[in-house]
């Protein structure tokens, strides 16, 4: 394993009751790279994320992270190694204030090891993190109940939940879906800044325009198979990709 590769996915497959969701997908991710994963609905993007993060056990194939095989390990072990992910469907702890939502990852052994934390200190860390993703510190927003926050804030809360782990690899599963144009516009620089800070990021995304602005490389999935891999605009010129996206390209 050369040092510059952080994640290698080797021919992973998964089928659910006869339907092949992911079919022998292989790719790798360099350190500090921002990789986009795109594809039409039902092409297996989220399943791929679940396979990497251990929420679904692959039928075959290998996932190697920082030179260690993590295939089929428990999700919390994978998270502890530094892979953080967002969920497509946000389900925060609604009856808690926004900043208290971050206590849970901050309580993990990984964070304790990296930066300590006692009762009370975690609250400060949480508010710092929320400021990082654009919750106005001096307003009431970080202290409001999660249930009363608008969707865009919840998505960013989800992002902050991941950042709380101080991850080495961040996987964003359709972070932008359901966000308004202005919310996307204010979140994009945050991701760019994280990436410039050396964080490797995988983004599963439907909003191609915004993704292509920041991604170094994209891979395209269709019916669970990888059909293209390369710099964004080169990939989109491929006939197969065009065919896969025909009719759905207009949405973005």
């Amino acid at each position, binding site marked *: 394993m050369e040092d510059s590769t952080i994640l290698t996915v080797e021919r992973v497959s998964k089928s659910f009751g006869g339907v092949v969701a992911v079919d022998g997908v292989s790719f790798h991710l360099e350190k500090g790279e921002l990789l986009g994963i795109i594809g039409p609905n039902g092409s297996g993007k989220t399943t791929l994320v*679940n396979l990497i993060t251990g*929420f679904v056990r692959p039928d075959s194939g290998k996932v190697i992270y920082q030179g260690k095989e993590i295939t089929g390990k428990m999700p919390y072990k994978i998270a502890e190694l530094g892979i953080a992910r967002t969920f497509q*469907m946000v389900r925060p702890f609604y009856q808690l204030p926004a900043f208290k939502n971050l206590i849970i990852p901050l309580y993990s052994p990984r964070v304790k090891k990296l930066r300590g934390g006692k009762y009370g200190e975690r609250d400060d860390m949480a508010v710092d993190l929320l400021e990082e993703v654009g919750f106005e510190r001096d307003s009431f927003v970080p202290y409001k109940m999660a249930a009363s926050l608008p969707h865009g804030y919840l998505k960013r809360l989800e992002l902050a939940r991941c950042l709380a782990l101080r991850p080495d690899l961040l996987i964003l599963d359709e972070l932008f879906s359901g966000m308004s144009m202005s919310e996307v516009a204010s979140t994009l620089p945050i991701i760019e800044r994280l990436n410039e800070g050396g964080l490797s990021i995988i983004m599963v995304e439907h909003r191609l325009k915004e993704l292509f602005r920041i991604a170094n490389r994209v891979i395209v999935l269709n019916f669970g198979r990888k059909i293209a891999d390369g710099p964004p605009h080169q990939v989109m010129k491929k006939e197969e990709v065009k065919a896969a996206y025909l009719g759905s390209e207009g949405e973005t």
Partner: protein
Amino acid sequence: MTTSILVYGLVNSVILALIAMGFSLTFGISGVANFAYGGFYLLSGYLTWMLLNYLGLPFALAMLITVAVAGLLGFLTYWVILLRVRGIALSEVIATFALGAGMLEFFRWMGFVTYEFTLPCFMKGRVEIFGVPLDYQRLFIIGIGLALVIFLYFFTHHTRIGLSFRGIAQNERTAISLGIESDWTAALSLALGSAMAAVAAIAILPLGIISINVGYDVLLIAVAVGIIGGLESVPGILIGSLILGYAQVITGMYLAPEWMMVVYLAAIVLVLAIKPSGLFGKFKELEERV
């Protein structure tokens, strides 16, 4: 010796399967663990007894009425109680558990505990099978068990209601969007489960006396078979019953009959340690539902 183990093991397995089927059917379709199952089972027994002894109805009619009443009560249980707490697992579990315990203890208080409470056999007498004497009632039980399995298979694979049952079991949301009424189906599943408890009760209770503890035992059996074979899976229930049934008969023959219940505990603990979701369980330990 060997043949008698084979024959009685089979009978025992069918009894277990008959008991467990209603419970797992309801659970598989609607996700409701009907802890009132033992209550329904015993209720059916007493109801038949009362219909026979107080009203003097013919046995066949009493059976039909009992099965219908049990089904209706199952339906009402859903419509009156469970519908209001649907989706809150905690409340569903507590409500059915309370209902079952309440029913059984009510019977105990009513004094249904003496030896007079027995149901008649369908037909008296016995035959010899491979040199093993077997009474007709046990033969009937095997027949009823087989008939129920076949009926269930055709019901779930070839009728509209059955297909909608399977639809709900597999993906409730999609099923709803396709016009299958989730509540109606769940209520029917409860009704069917309770009716099957009644069938099992009428077939099995003639073998012994009706007592309150039978109600708890029935729930234990249903749960034990479910845990071993995997709840909600029909082949799992069959295999689970075979394993338990034969294990019981063998311990009964070589040790002592009262060790049979210990077999349950041992089997449950063993299966939990090896494969907690049951041998054929579809319970995903970690399967993300997106």
